[in-house]
């Protein structure tokens, strides 16, 4: 190797060559530098991957191990913990079902009204719904505790679900309004011409067209109500009405210093598994929901 660089005859950019003639030393340094940079990059990505998935692997692994051997003992202990895992799952199921159905009913109807029917007071109502975003949810929980009790909905799963529907409204109504706005009105008019009633047109023609929006609303209502902790913590007082997150935190607080980590890990898996499974089924709805709701809201 000579100390100077000689252009090869087939070089494609002869005009710029004089500016970028490297010395051997510089070439070697930048080559090594680039390699070091690439290795550092790979190391960085590996560290990031370990940071993000490591905890999940640890909890999966830990949940199926007991005294160094693979076993379902952690899950078995969790099943009989407290009021029983079945009770907690059933309670959570009730809250999730009511929240998902309620959010869909509220947002499909209101979204349609906002998108299609000009009505007096619509602007005030829309601003009112968006105002829910401005107010920290936790400041509402103390008055809600008193107020729901007055309505005979205190210490009830229905009360928790209603609060969850309210929390979800800015997102769900906004999502459905946008979904209806993206359906051309001609589609509906054609259905009306063909003899559908207005409600029939909504049900048979428009609803199928806004299915992606309803899936996103249902998905977010599911995630929020399945994972909600503070609302049931404040509103529910009976142990047999606890939802899963509440029961799991109680498992930790039960006997101080004597946390059953095996059962806790099993509980973490049970509470995370449905969300992760849904994520893999509905990746597109997840990403669209987060970016739509966030960038515009």
């Amino acid at each position, binding site marked *: 190797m000579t100390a100077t660089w000689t252009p090869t005859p087939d070089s494609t950019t002869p005009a710029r060559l004089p500016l970028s003639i490297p010395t051997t030393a510089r070439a070697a340094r930048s080559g090594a530098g680039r390699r070091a940079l690439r290795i550092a990059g790979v190391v960085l990505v590996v560290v*990031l991957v370990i940071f993000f998935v490591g905890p999940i692997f640890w909890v999966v692994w830990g949940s199926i191990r007991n005294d160094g051997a693979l076993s379902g003992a952690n899950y078995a202990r969790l099943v009989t913990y407290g009021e029983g895992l079945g009770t907690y799952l059933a309670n959570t199921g009730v809250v999730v079902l009511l929240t998902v159905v309620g959010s869909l009913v509220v947002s499909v109807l209101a979204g349609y009204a906002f998108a299609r029917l000009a009505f007096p007071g619509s602007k005030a109502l829309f601003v009112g719904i968006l105002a829910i975003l401005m107010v920290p949810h*936790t400041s509402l929980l103390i*008055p809600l505790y008193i107020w729901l009790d007055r309505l005979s909905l205190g210490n009830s799963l229905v009360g928790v679900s209603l609060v969850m529907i309210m929390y979800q409204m800015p997102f769900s109504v906004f999502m459905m309004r946008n979904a209806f706005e993206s359906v051309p009105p001609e589609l509906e008019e054609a259905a009306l011409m063909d003899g559908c009633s207005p409600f029939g047109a909504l049900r048979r023609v428009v609803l199928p067209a806004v299915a992606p929006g309803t899936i996103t609303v249902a998905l977010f209502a599911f995630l929020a109500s399945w994972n909600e902790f503070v609302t049931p913590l404040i509103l529910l007082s009976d142990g047999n009405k606890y939802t899963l997150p509440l029961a799991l935190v109680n498992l930790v607080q039960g006997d101080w210093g004597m946390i059953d980590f095996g059962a806790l890990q099993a509980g973490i898996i049970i509470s*995370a598994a449905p969300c992760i499974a849904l994520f893999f089924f509905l990746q597109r709805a997840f990403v669209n929901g987060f970016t739509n709701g966030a960038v515009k809201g």
Partner: protein
Amino acid sequence: MTTAVATPRATIGSSDASRKRRRRTSLRAWLYAAPATAVLILLFVIPLGLAVWMSLHDWPLLGDAPTLNFPANYAEIPDERLFTAAVGFTVKYTAIIAVVLLTLSLGLALLIQESKRRGTGVLRTVFFLPVVTGLTTAALLFLGLLSPSAGPVDDILAWFGISVDFLGDPTWALISTVVMMTWRFAGFYMIILLAGLQAIPTELYEAAAIDGANKWRALRSVTIPLLRSTLALCTVLIVTGGLVAFEQFYVLTRGGPDNSTVTMVMTIFRQAFSQFNLGMAAAMSVVVLLGLVLLNMLQLRLMRDKDEVA
């Protein structure tokens, strides 16, 4: 002549009919909007009003009837040492989490932005996965992970001869919570920033490259300025979330050690359900609420101004 007279009459007639039709449409619209309106009024407007009403009263959780005591609840707030300390701690936590989360999520978004590179799809999933676990679940997961008896972190550090009391030392309790929240939320902000990144026209990067800008310079002069409104939105979300922090500390540190990680919302609930003083708790809620609304309005104003300039 006749047509000129007839036309206004015709419009009057049709406007009468269209007014009737409009009234029917708006009746139908309100029927559709009724469930949303009912939820809004019953579960938002009334509780919000009740919060203000309660804050003006001595409102014990149990026993006696509420009595008006304005402005005592508000006047006593500065004397609540735990609350004033909590305000300071919450602001400090919010500042730290904002810087850490914004930096890391932007880094992750830039890393997975070039979709041609192999493995970006997998990486996107990897970084996003924690977002779908609930916040409480994530906090419980880290509680186990960092516990000296059950978690692996302690054992790994022991190999290097390091020993850290993650949840028993005030500074480390804060750091541990920030790490947990970063794990849980970085993927969320990454996705939002990614959407912002993809809206930047590639021609701008080509132009910057022709002008001789390297990657770092392009990031500073093209990406960051054009991403400003998305970054501002993320900041609003992180700051708002940070100021109402509750679960992460309730589960992970329980406010300890020595009340060093008690947040504003935590003191509100203690005031209500440990001190049984709902009026005072409501007054604290109203203070936090007003502070957040003002901050939100300020941030939105700043965002809008920047957008207009850009």
